[in-house]
């Protein structure tokens, strides 16, 4: 029953928007928000979402026996 009360109060908050409570909610959101990728990190991700750095590493592995890379 108490959990039901909490659910209702937090739901009502989405409607009424008490600024005091909203500050606490925003603090929590700030602490646990997903970190956005930096521009540099984004450049490593191709359109398919596969990081291009993986391909560079694979190339390195493939070429390790290449005498021109010794």
């Amino acid at each position, binding site marked *: 029953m*108490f*959990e*039901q*009360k*909490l*659910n*209702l*109060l*937090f*739901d*009502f*908050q*989405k*409607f*009424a*928007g*008490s600024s*005091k*409570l909203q*500050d*606490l*909610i925003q603090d*929590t959101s700030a*602490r*646990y928000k997903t970190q956005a990728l930096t521009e540099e990190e984004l450049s490593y991700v191709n359109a398919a979402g596969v990081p291009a750095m993986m391909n560079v590493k694979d190339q390195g592995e493939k070429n390790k026996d290449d005498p021109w890379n010794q």
Partner: protein
Amino acid sequence: MESIMTYEQVYHDYSKKVMSYIRSKITNPTEAEDLHSAVFVKIYEKFSTFDQTKASISTWIYTVSRNTLIDFFRTRKVYDELGDEDIVEDDTYQGILDEETLNELSEALEKLPERERDLIIMHYYNHSQLKDIALKMHMSYSNCKLLHNKALMKLRKYLS
């Protein structure tokens, strides 16, 4: 006490709040618009019978909005979007829905240690599952459940 409002004033003051509340539950903008209209049609129909001297208009509009959403989800039978814990039509708690109670809740939350407060907010405001909260807070699921119960006991005491 709030002064008596006309329907036009109510629409002006609450239209955005209602939409914002609906959009917190419905991602489809067309459906949100339809529901927003449905809410204000109901308010219009019942407006003349609602006694503003006896009850809070804010709570009434919230209740109409919430019940409209519940009906919508029941029709679509998509309970997951609202969450079973939200489908409550019991009027037991209607009397607590005011800014004063929200302020009491925020004072109670401020007394909790930060981790417990964060857990409560993520679980009851964001509707995150405890297992997901455990991952975010870098703790085991069993510890998260313990922390949750601890926080609930404290809140129950602070709000009683």
